[in-house]
């Protein structure tokens, strides 16, 4: 059993605060995810996701505000459109598309955040390390 490395891109306004909410409620989840705070999920270009894999990540999780709740009105609309295309491209190039996960977590949803992280860590743990699939 290896310890997967996961990069988590979280928007500053909803999901990062959702993670803080989980902390304030002392909910427990695996430590594999390293959270990178970004202003909006829309900031994350497909290249940054791919770059995470190149730098050694086994999985990337991208969390933003619920559609309609975006602090920047429509930033997450771009995420919602962009990322499924990237998943298709990943599949095409031989990267398991489940290594990238997109969801919406609000500032109030500490519990959802914890569940999402637990489940994604399990999904990634069940896959071989990313470097091995690239051999």
């Amino acid at each position, binding site marked *: 059993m*290896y310890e997967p*490395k996961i990069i988590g891109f979280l928007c500053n306004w909803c999901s990062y605060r959702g993670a803080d909410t989980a902390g304030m409620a002392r909910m427990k989840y695996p430590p594999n995810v390293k959270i*990178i705070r970004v202003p909006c999920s829309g900031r994350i270009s497909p290249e940054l996701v791919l770059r995470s894999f190149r*730098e050694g990540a086994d999985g990337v999780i991208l969390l933003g505000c619920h559609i309609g709740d975006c602090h*920047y009105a429509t930033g997450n609309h771009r995420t919602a459109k962009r990322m499924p295309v990237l998943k298709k491209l990943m599949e095409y190039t031989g990267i398991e598309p489940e290594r990238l996960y997109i969801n919406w977590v609000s500032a*109030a949803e500490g519990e959802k955040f914890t569940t999402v992280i637990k489940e994604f860590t399990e999904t990634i743990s069940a896959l071989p390390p990313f470097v091995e699939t690239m051999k």
Partner: protein
Amino acid sequence: MKSKKKPQERVGVYICHCGSNIAGVVNVEDVSTWAGKELEKEGVVVARDYKFMCSSLGQELIEKDIKEQGLTRVVVAACSPHLHEPTFRNACSRAGVNPYLFEMTNIREQDSWVTTDKLEATKKAKSLVSAAVGRVVYQKPLESLFVPIDPNVLVVGGGVTGIQAALEIANSGQHVYLVEREPSIGGHMAQFDKTFPTLDCSACILTPKMFDAGNHKNITMLTWSEVEKVEGYIGNFTVTIRKRARFIEESLCTGCGVCWEKCPKKVVDDVFEAGLGYRKAVYTPFPQAVPKYPVIDHENCTYFQKGTCKACEKFCPTGAIKFDQQDEILTVKVGNIILATGYDLFDARKIPNYGYGRLPNVFTSLEFERMTNAAGPTMGKVVLRDGVTQPKSVAVIHCVGSRDKNYHNYCSSICCMQSLKFAHLVKEKTGGDVYQFYIDMRTPGKSYDEFYQKIIHEGVNMIRGKVAEIIEGEGGLIVQAEDTLVGKQRRIPVDMVILSAGLESRADAKEVAQKFGISCSADDWFIERHPKLDPVATMTDGVFVAGACQGPKDIPASVAQGAAAAARVLSIIGQGEIEIEAATAMVDEITCVGCKQCVASCPYQAIQFLEEKGKAYVQEALCKGCGTCVGTCLPKSITLKHFTDEQIVAEMIGAMRVMKSFEMTEVA
């Protein structure tokens, strides 16, 4: 990124113990020693751990190191940056380091509080510190932009909270637009009879305030109006308001009341009288309404529906009735917004076993408020649904829709006190028996528990237990409940039941939140910036919340919040100008291909396309720094300051550097 040389910086790393909050789980000494040694090649020259970094001593420690060790970058690993990023940015600034050369990493909410295994938590802390150090050396100094504040204020909601906020601001000399959806301001408080715990008359204390607001030279009152659109940012909002047609020419109307006397059409008043009384098709909700002008209810007016009548027009002495009046669309400019949109009452029909809507003598709390009100439909008499019979016994049921996982989990906070007030009013007006069915009695607040004691002494029967059902029987109603203090089931025959229905967020709270760019909790209450330390601000600068729209609240708390929001707004106006986001986007004109993808992706229309150059251009004052354009730009010509690709990649490499080295040491 690889081709560029890593900048040579002198980084200081500070690990906070946060008492035992962090140090109890994370081995902070180990993290700081490790950072000093292992991250030396990344530029770390000082690494320390300290009990409370946010204390003045902690901040002085940073300032001293900046001056003595010549630090050019600072990393603090402590709580969430949402809490203390401004604190440490200020400390850096004081010691001469640009605040944007500081990076904070969260080893409390996102590490020590969520990780069970101490070794794992320590490892995660190292990874987070390494990521922050990796990033900070690529950060660039930024200068903030300042924009002037428009001193006008928009207050949405004319209940007691909104009135208080509007008066505070107007009295200070600033102009307020007070928008109210109903024909009159006053909100729920205008419907009540008595207020707890003092039992003074609600209207007597509210109507002077309504009058003041209605006649204030600095308040533009927009009733029967709703906000349609909000654009802009703190200091510079443009708000579009729909002022619905009243079909009354306000400049001619004297409020004499002839129109509603002559109107032949009677309508059940579902809003103000809670369905218990009637109004006319042309009406003011109550005699003390502010403003005094009535409205014509388009849906129920005989003229609008059938084409004939016009009785009001015939009798109006000033010719103020205007059947051809249209909705007006107003655009106002304001610098700050206060939302005081209040609450809705829980719909008791949702609990079928309580029989509301089916059993005539089951009333809601709001119906009872109207009933006991001397100006209400029964002229203050407590009577059954038939309108004449006085009840000999009354049951008051607490927590209807609140503290119930099937409906709302939260406590509505006002119902215990309200129910005790009802008990007193029933006793006073009928002398009958009163049974209170409660789960727990919650009476915190000044003079509240004393009120509870007083009601007990008045001879009210207190039964601790949740009511299972209310059925018909024995010539009246039977309340079935478990008396948990006695441990027995009880069936109590009564003539009347009052359901103390909980408070819930407005049905359109989510829609309103989206309009103003703020968020809602799981129960759709508006979310404040910080539950304790910033209770009236929101995550959107310039938008404040006050009163029950933020969560269930009684009158004193709502008034306090209205005034608090006003004070916050006045403090911003007093500053004259405000710092706006320095982390804005920037276009590299050399590589921009002019595809206009960024222009289309920007939620704020902040990106202009310069036709003559064929390049995109970011207008800094409009840019909010979301970076959506950066994620969209194919040739990577747009950079979001403070969140550049370089910085984000350095952060991820930093994080994974630790994960890798740990794996190797563990294997070895």
